[in-house]
């Protein structure tokens, strides 16, 4: 009775370099708890200080987000796969409340300077 947990590339450094880990079947919460025990550094990436899954960490069972199932109570049957998937988002810098474009208030060079300055 085992399930496979896939680890995203960026987090494998916290999981002994493994791309996937085989763990006993159970609920998602039980499986992730076992994962945390085995790899505490990975646990810190997945859970916040209050012990809740971080908002930017997505957990899927098969093709379904556990948020649309029973959350951490979702049962994972023998042979199924649990995927840990990072959320990635972003967007360009807003300069003084205006979007930074060459066509409006700020020129391209000013944009480059401001963006570089903000990065430091």
């Amino acid at each position, binding site marked *: 009775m085992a399930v496979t947990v*896939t680890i*995203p*590339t*960026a*987090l*494998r*450094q*916290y999981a002994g370099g493994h*791309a996937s880990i085989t763990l006993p079947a159970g609920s998602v919460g039980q499986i992730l708890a076992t994962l945390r025990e085995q790899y505490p550094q990975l646990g810190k*990436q997945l859970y916040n200080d209050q012990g809740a899954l*971080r908002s*930017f*960490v*997505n957990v*899927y069972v098969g*093709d379904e*987000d556990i948020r649309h199932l029973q959350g951490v109570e979702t049962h994972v049957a023998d042979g199924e796969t649990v*995927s840990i*998937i*990072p*959320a*990635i*988002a*972003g*967007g*360009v*810098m*807003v300069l003084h409340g205006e*979007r*930074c*474009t*060459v*066509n409006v208030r700020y020129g*391209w060079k000013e*944009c*480059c300077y401001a*963006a*570089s300055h*903000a*990065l430091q």
Partner: protein
Amino acid sequence: MIILTGDVHHAIARHAEEIYPNECVGLLLGRIAGMRTEVEDVFPAPNRWTAEVGLTPTDADHSQRDRFYLDPRDYLRADRAANARGLDVVGCYHSHPDHPAVPSPRDLTGAQAIGSGSRFVFLIQSVHRGHAAELTAWLLVDDGARFVAEEMR
């Protein structure tokens, strides 16, 4: 060192120009070997940003012209496509329409799931008046506190 092989550079530029004036997003498929991240292919994804997936309430004032969101389902599809070819998802890319190819504070916030210290690379494609301009590479460091530029060829 980031190594872009084959048509990767042009594929990102084409995607960014096609989606302009919106921001494009996609994943990078390849291999990480020591300090080298080799990108062999791209996996273009839809920009699924909406106000509902915004990072703060003020995001309602924005659009896909200055925001992007990579849906986890698309990440999962990319991961499976990579694995089928013996590759991994080794990074992501997005465009900055009419904006320099440097990470924004919002990019930093939206990258926190990646954790720092890995060779997972963030590529940014600047698009200037509809034409692809500079492409830059960045790694997340200092416990996710900042990006540093990474050499790329």
